[in-house]
């Protein structure tokens, strides 16, 4: 049959009422959707709530460290609380937040109307949501790694394994989109920096996190064996939260910075190939499945580990050179909140990498556990800052409203303040613990500052959530498709994009900045 007339957009179709042809709505539509835009929004919403929870938990853990009048928050449950916090930062909050941004933005950046395997992406989202709920419930009943109830601990382990599997499935959908659904002319060296960084980070996750899953499976089976294994649960996973594997989550953050910097410097990214190389090398040096104590108990004291921790600083220097030496130096800077947060993220990440180098070289006898926490905090806050910068930048595209500049600046100030209060005292305490004759007093004071930092970060995330909800609710009338005059393809469609996103055939892409090419051609012709 050939359709010769345009299908009516509303009203009766073949004797059916508008209600009958409208399709599902409400909760049924939400649960049944495989639209990458809805899935991305759901990831972002849930993960922001969890991020606020993680920062609150970090503050409460510091309360226990201060031990005010011997009245701890967690008491005997400090083990499961700290393990849940460590896992929560990467697997419950940050990676899902980045995955949400990627699920929404990446298909648009590569000119695709859909994500690859949309139903698998939906399955990944809801599995992540359910397993997160199961994990939290198991913690309530005495589970989590280091918990008192063996059955609840086993349930936590299963929930965590399923959660990692779900994240891998969601990541797979995004990276296959980047590889297979690009438009004509968009070679890999023309892929936008965020998409490229997610491709690199996702590929690394596909190689690294199955090793985490292997340890989860082993721990689950080992509970039927003769040995006591509860202590080995976390040691099989913790390396994934330590250097160099933890840098996997920082890689998409670098991609977001790479999107924001040229737009707010109002010029093309200088040395694009070098930037791609820097991202690729940063990813390559972040591969850390080899650096687990299960294979080699002294791995963190060996030369190769120190060398790799040092090596990861080199591509970061390359990227810094591209941004500061090239784009920012010669651009007309537009001091908007995404740029400010991106610069804060760069600072925090540099401090994190520096802490990693100091930690392995250890010229000043840093306390190992505090040094680990300091570095982890720097990487986590840097990634969170970059993710929020990306959120502010893409809010018009994602929610169809504007993230107003004054609340955005409040978010920047509160986020930077909270990050510094949360991270720097931990770093200083790592330096002091083994170098003071009586460190108790100073360490308590520094831990007290960390409490404030954690709470301030919680407020920053809460303000971000409020501003995003406001942007989604307000719908500021007409927003230009390319609000920031950006160069990548997601800005070629509406705010938010219409169903199907790209309803026309894209012209072949001829550079890494197709929209800038288009504007330059238009200006030349006029």
């Amino acid at each position, binding site marked *: 049959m050939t359709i010769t007339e345009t299908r009516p957009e509303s009203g009766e179709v073949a004797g059916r009422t508008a209600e009958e042809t409208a399709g599902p709505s409400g909760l049924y539509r939400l649960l049944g959707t495989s639209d990458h835009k809805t899935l991305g929004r759901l990831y972002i919403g849930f993960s922001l709530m969890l991020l606020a929870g993680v920062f609150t938990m970090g503050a409460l853990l510091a309360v226990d460290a201060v031990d005010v009048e011997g009245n701890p928050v967690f008491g005997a449950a400090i083990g499961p609380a700290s393990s849940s916090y460590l896992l929560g930062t990467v697997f419950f909050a940050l990676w899902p937040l980045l995955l949400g941004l990627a699920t929404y933005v990446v298909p648009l950046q590569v000119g695709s109307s859909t994500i690859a395997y949309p139903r698998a992406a939906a399955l990944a989202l809801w599995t992540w949501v359910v397993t997160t709920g199961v994990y939290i419930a198991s913690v309530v009943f005495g589970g989590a790694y280091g918990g008192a109830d063996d059955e609840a601990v086993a349930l936590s382990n299963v929930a965590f394994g399923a959660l990692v599997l779900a994240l891998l499935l969601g990541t797979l959908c995004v990276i*296959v989109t980047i590889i*297979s659904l690009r438009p004509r002319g968009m070679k890999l060296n023309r892929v936008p920096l965020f998409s490229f960084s997610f491709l690199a980070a996702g590929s690394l996750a596909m*190689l690294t996190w199955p*090793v985490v899953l*292997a340890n989860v*499976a*082993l721990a689950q089976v080992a509970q039927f064996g003769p040995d006591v294994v509860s202590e080995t649960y976390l040691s099989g996973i913790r390396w994934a939260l330590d250097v160099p594997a933890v840098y996997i989550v920082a890689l998409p953050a670098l991609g977001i910075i790479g999107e924001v910097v040229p737009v707010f410097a109002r010029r093309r990214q200088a040395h694009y190939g070098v930037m791609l190389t820097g991202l690729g090398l940063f990813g390559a040096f972040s591969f850390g*499945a080899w650096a687990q104590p299960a*294979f080699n108990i002294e791995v963190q004291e060996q030369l190769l580990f120190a060398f790799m921790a040092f090596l990861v600083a080199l591509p970061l220097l390359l990227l810094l050179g591209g941004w500061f030496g090239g784009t920012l130096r010669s651009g007309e800077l537009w001091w908007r909140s995404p740029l400010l947060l991106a610069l804060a993220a760069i600072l925090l990440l540099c401090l994190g990498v520096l802490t990693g180098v100091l930690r392995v070289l250890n010229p000043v006898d840093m306390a190992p556990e505090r040094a680990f926490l300091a570095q982890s905090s720097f990487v986590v806050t840097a990634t969170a800052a970059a993710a929020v910068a990306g959120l502010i930048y893409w809010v018009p595209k994602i929610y169809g409203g504007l993230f107003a500049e004054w609340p955005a600046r409040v978010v920047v100030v509160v986020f930077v303040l909270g990050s510094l209060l949360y991270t720097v005292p931990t770093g200083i305490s790592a330096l002091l613990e083994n170098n003071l004759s009586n460190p108790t007093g100073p360490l308590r004071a520094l831990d007290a500052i960390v409490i404030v930092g954690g709470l301030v970060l919680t407020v920053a995330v809460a303000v971000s959530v409020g501003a995003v909800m406001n942007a989604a609710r307000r719908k500021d009338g007409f927003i230009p498709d390319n609000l920031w005059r950006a160069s990548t393809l997601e800005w070629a469609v509406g705010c938010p994009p219409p169903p199907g996103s790209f309803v026309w055939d894209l012209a072949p892409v001829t550079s890494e900045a197709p929209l800038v090419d288009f504007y330059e051609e238009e200006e030349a012709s006029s």
Partner: protein
Amino acid sequence: MSIIPVESPAPVLPRRRKQLFATAYASAGVVMFTVALLGSYLVQRAADIETWLADNSIPLLQPTMGLFTLVLSAAAMQWAVYAISRDMRSHALLATGLTGLLGIAYINSIAFLYSQVGLEMANHSEAPLFYTLTASHLVFVAIGVLYLAVMAFRALGGQFSARYPEGISAAAVYWYVVVGLYGVIWYAVYVTK
């Protein structure tokens, strides 16, 4: 005689080997999972070399039969790829079915092996590692059989041809990886014990 006019545009084919890339990534994950378990197994065995499998002797017959079965299945899988790329659909279906059947035979042989090894979880410290490693591979083979079955049904429905052999090729990539991994497990776990 074809009823399709010659000027009709060619049907739109799926883009750039989407399934092949997805399967390659998933296969890489499977490799890393198995290598991690194998690494833990070998490290633990090196540490407890005096007592490792001291109470029992794992027979080599079933694992070796399993290896031959999987090697044969890999040959059958290659036959399926060859056949579909030449539009010999009946051969492709036969070869895919044979591959799946050999995969089930392998699962059967390893399940029988478990009844012979006498490794009890509660009494042997090496048992958790042994069973996690070998049973996870068994699960990967079962997933491969399921994958082959789905691709065979799609081939039966005419979705794959010489122009678009991707589904069978992707299943083949996964199958070869699983067979290769068993070769490593066979040597590291069953032969060198």
